[in-house]
């Protein structure tokens, strides 16, 4: 999708890197250990294309965290990774060696907070740097098969025509755990204009 120019795209990547950098800092404070987060790739695609990307890259069962946002852009953000590894991540966060066979209520909450910190930092950094405002709702942890994913991500019941997905690959590394997941920002296309506008203003000041 060529909605964004190369510079605009580059700017978003830079802002995402700032966001995950701050999230990593916040997480490292929380777990008292180094947390490495990096964003190897970012692209704008449609919900079905995003689903296809997950199908290719991720196992059939995913765990994740969803959080709605509104402000200069509106939509729903998600952190997604292989369900089997989500427990490993939670255990690495809380410093438990043994992982239970099944995710418990408490682990669900921990996972929700992990996603919450990450998504809040990304959205807040995006907004702050672009001199805009965004508001986020509370996060919720979920698990889903890849095929059911659009149901979780869609802003409007199964009508994805008005949405655009900003799909960000993200690499985590914490203690002895390393895994790749995705951040998916499902953006209401009606708000994409104000996003674009904010990006252009930022760039105009640089050039």
């Amino acid at each position, binding site marked *: 999708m060529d909605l964004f120019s190369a510079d605009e795209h580059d700017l978003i990547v830079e802002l995402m890197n700032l966001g995950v950098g701050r999230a990593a800092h916040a997480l490292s404070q*929380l*777990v008292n250990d180094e947390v490495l987060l990096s964003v190897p790739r970012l692209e704008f695609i449609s919900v079905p294309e995003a689903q296809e990307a997950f199908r290719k890259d991720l196992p059939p069962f995913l765990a994740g965290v969803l*959080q709605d946002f*509104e*402000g200069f852009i509106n939509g729903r953000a998600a952190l997604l990774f292989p369900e089997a590894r989500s427990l490993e991540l*939670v255990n690495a*966060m*809380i410093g*438990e060696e*043994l992982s*239970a*066979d099944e995710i*418990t*209520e*408490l*682990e669900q*909450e*921990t996972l*929700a*907070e992990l996603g*919450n910190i990450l998504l*809040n930092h990304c*959205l*807040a950094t995006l907004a702050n740097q672009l001199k805009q*405002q*965004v*508001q*986020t*709702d*509370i*996060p919720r942890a979920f698990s889903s098969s890849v095929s059911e994913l659009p149901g979780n991500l869609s802003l409007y019941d199964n009508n994805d025509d008005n949405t655009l997905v900003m799909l960000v690959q993200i690499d985590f590394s914490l203690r002895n755990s390393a895994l790749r997941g995705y951040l998916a920002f499902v953006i209401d296309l009606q708000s994409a204009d104000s996003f674009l506008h904010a990006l252009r203003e930022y760039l105009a000041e640089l050039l």
Partner: protein
Amino acid sequence: MPSSSETASDCLASILDHIDCTELLHSLDGGVLLLNRRCQIVFCNRWISQHIGLGDDELIGKTLAQLYPGQIAPALQEAIENACLYRMGRILSYQLHKRLLPLRQRTPSGELRPLHQSILIRPLSESDLTLIQVHDITNAVKREQHLRASERVLRLERKVLELIATGDSMDDVLTEICTTIETLLPSVHSAILLLDEDGKSLSVRCAPSLPPAFMKREKGLRVGPGGTTCTQSIQHRALTITPDIGSDELWRPFAEEAKRMNIAACWAQPIVAAYDEVLGVLACYPECPSSPSDADKLLLQRMANLTAITLERHKRIERIRFLAMHDPLTGLPNRSLLNELLGRNLRRAHREGNRFALMFIDLDGFKEINDHHGHDAGDDLLSVLSGRMTDQLRGTDTCARIGGDEFVIMLETVHSPESAQLVAEKILTKLNSPVQRGPLCLQVSASIGIALYPDHGVSADALLTHADDAMYKAKAEGKNCWQLANPNGQ
């Protein structure tokens, strides 16, 4: 025309319009706070005032930081500010924040306990307010701790069972059991004490984290009145607890020693096998005076069961090994054990320059006993005679049954041919003495051939052959006598 869902939502809206939401919030089993942009409380439900212990009037208008100066976790403070000022929603989970608000709750027994909680912070859209929900997750925490603990036990049990299944040595498995207990019960030492054959005393078999002095002290603890925790547990066949060794009368003689070993209490779980046979005691020695919790008791029970399985399996293997090497009728070593022992003794005699004797014994007239009085009588006779023979031997000598009425005696060392002959004489006398079996008096005699190492041969085969030949010579000489091998004669 409105769709049915629209009608339903209209309907719900009108119902909600008529409900007093405040009452709804007060009735919730969890905390609800509404904060304004300046983080001040504008509403709190009944749960909050109860758990904070202040009335509405004392809470409204205050920030949480004012209510609890210096006591609010920085992460919570930051999250509240980010929500009230910058409208960022947040969850603070229990696992990552062990202490959020200093809330306490009264347990059924009346004590105040810290309340485990997680907090949701939600900026309300279409208003400046921020909703804070406090969840009491004490029960979830308990469930989780339970789950984790039982999973650890399962994992360790599986490991122990694997060790048992792969035939690891009994001592390795027992050590693993002790280590397992010590992993699950920190600052507890554990030991396994086994009941001796006679069932009258206990000795330590395994105590990986206790000093060697402990192994010694517990050697041969007599089971009987006046015993300490472990021996009592054998007598009662039940978990026996001494919560504080220092104040226990029966432990007084060992109190100093216990202090040196840093053990302050003793919990003894008897190890009971099938058919209620007590095999020993699984003992735990906490470093501080204490009694086991219900979960600890369960753990001891399970570990004692594993120990019982391990011990029984060991016994069974020993039994199988014994059966493979012994004659079932007389309990004497069989031909294969004789070969093994003979080989061992040959190497030793060669190494140490010893002389030893092999006697080949064949009963005279045994077939007639069998024919006239039946096999049962013959079997009984063999049992009695084997007993008589072993009675004449030293512990290090061997008497083996290698055929129907054929025996081999190996005298581990002999100084001269004469001393072997002396033993042969005694054996002859013992074998030709009558055996009373009910009204019957059974009597046989024996022919014995003697071969000496190294005089008559230096290999097992040569010695056995020469002894056998000498035995035939004794038969030819009129039975009930012995003959010395004479390899070069004939």
